[in-house]
């Protein structure tokens, strides 16, 4: 029986290269389509129903992993990557097939042998791959929910700017919006204090009041007022900020 495969990579030259060595070591394999981005790969697999898909991990639109999640039960997948440490470690662990660029003939030969064995035994493609990929994706840096906000988007005259959170002295609620106070000035952003409190790194930013979050590295000192509230002074700023009773415990160890 002859098998069909699709090759997906955003770089034309690399598709050509993979095809050329595949032709050499697995001449019976028919390359029924090439994709230059994730979306095309998905469409190709769905329309041509190949037995194998070679997916580059970094592709515009949908990444190779995202494509794999959707086609996991449809065909066997071999990931191709130049360098994705996290993913490779996970693939090793889960016995997911992958190739490293530049693809070597010896390594491809192993993969082809394994694919042939599986296909000839006519076992179903493992649907569990979707879960494995999901797990890997959630652990990749910059994808999971553990990353904190690093830039604040502000309106500046006629342009929109990103300012790094480290430059913010404090955030102050203004109705539904939030005032961002930096050394350079103030600007209003659409995010609420509540949203910010969830997105900012809690080690770097402390909420001191229902409507206020301060940058810890800018705190000069905190003193108790006669009424029991805390008064907080920031470095190089004239104003005194109030720490409400609920948040005073943050300063106990200082």
């Amino acid at each position: 029986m002859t098998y069909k495969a699709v090759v997906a990579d955003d770089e034309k030259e690399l598709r050509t290269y993979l095809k050329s060595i595949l032709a050499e070591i697995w001449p019976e394999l028919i390359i029924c389509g090439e994709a230059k981005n994730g979306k095309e790969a998905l469409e190709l697999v769905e329309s041509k129903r190949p037995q194998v898909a070679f997916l580059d991990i970094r592709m515009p639109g949908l990444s190779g992993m995202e494509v794999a999640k959707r086609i996991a039960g449809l065909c066997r997948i071999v990931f191709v990557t130049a360098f994705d440490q996290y993913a490779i470690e996970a693939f090793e662990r889960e016995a997911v097939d992958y190739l490293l660029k530049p693809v070597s003939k010896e390594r491809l030969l192993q993969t082809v042998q394994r694919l042939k064995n599986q296909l000839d035994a006519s076992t179903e493609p493992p649907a569990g791959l979707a879960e494995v990929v999901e797990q890997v994706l959630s652990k990749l840096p910059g994808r999971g929910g553990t990353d904190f906000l690093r830039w604040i988007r502000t309106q500046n005259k006629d342009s929109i700017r990103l300012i790094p959170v480290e430059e913010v002295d404090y955030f102050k609620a203004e109705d539904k919006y939030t005032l961002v106070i930096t050394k350079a000035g103030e600007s209003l952003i659409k995010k609420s204090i509540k949203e910010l409190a969830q997105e900012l790194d809690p080690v770097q930013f402390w909420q001191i009041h229902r409507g206020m979050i301060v940058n810890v590295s800018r705190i000069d000192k905190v003193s108790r007022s006669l009424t029991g509230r805390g008064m907080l002074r920031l470095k190089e700023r004239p104003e005194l900020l109030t720490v409400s009773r609920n948040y005073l415990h943050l300063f106990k160890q200082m």
Partner: protein
Amino acid sequence: MEQHIPINLKNHINARHFLIDLIYTILISALIAAFLTFTGITTKSFIMNLIVSQSFGISFCSIIMFLLWIFKPERIASLVFILAIGVASGTLIGLQIGSFILRQFFFITLKQQEKSLFQIIILAITFGSLITYFFYSQARLRVSQELTQQERIKRLSSEKEALEANLRLLQAQIEPHFLFNTLSNVLSLIDTDPASGKSMLVDLIHYLRTSLSRTFPDSITLDQEIDMIKAYLNIQKIRMGERLRFKIELPDAVRKHPFPPMLLQPLVENALNHGLEPKMEGGEIMIKAMEKDDLIRVEVMDTGLGFSSFEKTGVGIGNVRERIKLLYGEKGRFILEENHPNGVRVIIEVPKQ
């Protein structure tokens, strides 16, 4: 040297310091009493001298500490004023307390003789001022020691920051993804299009050599940096084909200006990795250098995916911002803004050296 130390005694007025200074005061007052008795400056007994000098000493100490705690003087004039007030009121109160104790417990009334009283007051003021000055210089010494300590910590941590920035720079220089993808391309082009393969390899060699030689940043000129970026973009152009276009504007006026190495490259790399590569139809990168008064201004613009792609990442860009801060402090600028109609625009300004 003294002039450089700000009077920041306010941090030193706490219960512990108060107690320590009080104990010193009591000891010194006892010494003064002994001194007065044995030299015969006063004709009174040691016990009497002790009581009087303690009343003065403790009054001085408490009043001055109290005033410092309340007013927290920051300028030297107000500090001197407070010390003077302290000595004056300490003299008055100390005199009252001293004579009160002597009258109550020893049944000795200080005679209202002008001379004796006058002598006590003169002695009190003289010693009071001397001792106050002693404490003041002690506190200054403490402050200056702490300041030097802080300076040291500050210097060490900024050295550490610079070192870390260098390390990150080194790590960021050659992105493995870029390197292996380029090599794969070269490998393939050897068969399909040897001429392109060769030129790609030449660009890669140029790029690697220049970026590796810049691990320990020497001064380079702007056109050297742009040259390296061109090599980088040429490589990316072969990889991405039609999806990448780039334009570089480098006027002759700024070509030969010294420029810190590896400031621009991470910006270009960021524009590619987060802006253009993930975008299906790709786009354009534009680099524009210009003079602006005594600044060199370089803009890196792309028409890629824009802010949404790196609101939570942009590590490379963060490093550039940090390095500008480390190198130029307030004189350097780093601005990140939305490009019209799409993509990101980064503006950096550094002083002409």
